[in-house]
């Protein structure tokens, strides 16, 4: 079995937001909607403070709460773990947005463009009318993965089969791959470092790992 996951090395992330820009450009999300975000957080109490950059987005949970509550079965899950939205089934009730502990879902009621009433040339080619009035979120660039694997490429290793945010990461903080490949780079990376997943107490089993230190847990 394959399960695609993403790894964010918090020690490496510099908060440049290149992943955010790459996702936005590649997926044509409207203003205000960001499937991949990088939060700029301050932790601690002055003077002992830290600044942490945290990439966030859909965590592609093994037990997705969005899928549980979705009344239309529009939210689904592929065999490789990627959580999907069928835009033709979604009724736009936004219940999934209430159920997601990661604030990863968005919905817009009408087409919006970055500069006024009309789309720019790039927007005109990228905007998806089917995504108006329905829930949207990060897809792990499933289309790229499918197209790449169909050509025998390996997601996470071959850029053409890898999510855009991972490709664009300037510091190597974002990594992607099959966690079930026990000798693969993702499994090795997680075995050699300490990591956590967000809101594990909710039982969602996120497919997004945050590395924060070296050494096994």
């Amino acid at each position, binding site marked *: 079995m394959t399960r695609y996951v993403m790894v964010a*090395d*918090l*020690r490496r992330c510099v908060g440049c937001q290149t992943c955010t820009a790459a996702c936005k450009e590649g997926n044509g999300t409207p203003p205000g909607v960001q499937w991949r975000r990088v*939060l*700029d*957080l*301050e*932790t*601690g*109490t002055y003077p002992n403070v*830290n600044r*942490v950059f*945290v990439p*966030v987005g859909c965590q592609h949970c093994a037990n997705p*709460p969005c899928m*549980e*509550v*979705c*009344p*239309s*079965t*529009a939210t689904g899950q592929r065999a490789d773990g990627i959580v999907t939205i069928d835009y033709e*089934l*979604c*009724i*736009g*009730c*936004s*219940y999934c*947005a*209430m*159920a*997601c*502990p*990661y*604030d990863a879902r968005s*919905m817009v*009621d009408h087409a919006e463009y970055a500069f006024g009433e009309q789309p720019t040339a790039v927007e005109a080619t990228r905007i998806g009318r089917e995504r*108006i*009035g*329905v829930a949207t979120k990060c897809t792990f660039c499933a289309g790229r993965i499918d197209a790449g694997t169909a050509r025998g490429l390996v997601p996470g290793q071959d850029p053409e089969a890898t999510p855009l945010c991972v490709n664009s990461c300037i510091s190597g903080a974002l990594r992607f791959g099959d966690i079930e490949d026990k000798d693969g780079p993702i499994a090795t990376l997680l075995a050699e470092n300490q990591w*956590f997943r*967000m*809101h594990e107490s*909710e039982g*969602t089993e996120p497919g997004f790992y945050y*590395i*924060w*230190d*070296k050494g096994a847990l």
Partner: protein
Amino acid sequence: MSQTVTSRRQRYWDLRAAGNFIGGGTGSGLIVVAAIAAVAGEPFRLPLALGLGFIAAGLSLVWLEIGKPWRAFNVFFHPRTSWMTREGIVATVLIPLGAIAVAADSVPAAVLAALLAAGFLFCQARILRAARGIPAWRQAEIVPLILATGLAEGSAVFLLAGSHAVPWLTLALLAVLAREAAWLAYRSGLGGTPAAARALGVFATPPARLARAAQLAGLAAVALALGFALLLAPGALAAPATLLAWTSGVLVALSGWGVKALLITRAAFIRAVVLPVVPTRGSGGRHARPV
């Protein structure tokens, strides 16, 4: 470890969604009280019809809110796990059955409708409980709160649309007391997470204080009205007692709607990011340590 609070208020459910919980709660409670009246041999058709109207109005508001209203039928596709689907299914049986009870003046149909209304209200409570992204809805006390609120509002409207005799004032008082207990339990549970604690701030704002003051005034008014009814001879139960009963009904219902509107639209903060540890950076002893 303190950190920047990233939770933000949910952006998608506005007063139209709140209207579903207001209409559904009040309507369900009213249908339950109407069925009790039916079994007791009292007139029940008007409050039952009104209860159905509340539920239908609430569902209509949701229909106006969803992004793809012409696909609304898809809401029935996921009964296995979605409380929203279950709510929809119960409503499709409840509304025609209630209509039959009203049209045929049927007590058995009214009782069945009341059972379905209770189920409908339970579904609404579980819709909120299943919202794992919003800690203020996620806590277990939300379920008794929604149930008690619906019953209180329904029994309050029954005082206006049905009877305000002693049994119905007693029922209203018990329901309002249950709502108070559920509210106190719910409120004491907030604060478990930063996002839920932010709801406490919302409940301290002037509109929330006003709604709470009206709730307490409603409680006092119901108790006074019941006291009037018990202490005065039936013949002496004239205009003042009736006015007091109606006032209490209005206060209990409106204040409940206000609190519910705040709960859905203002006090709902998404859980967002919480870091259990911070990354190791730099050298020597400057790196952060786990907490």
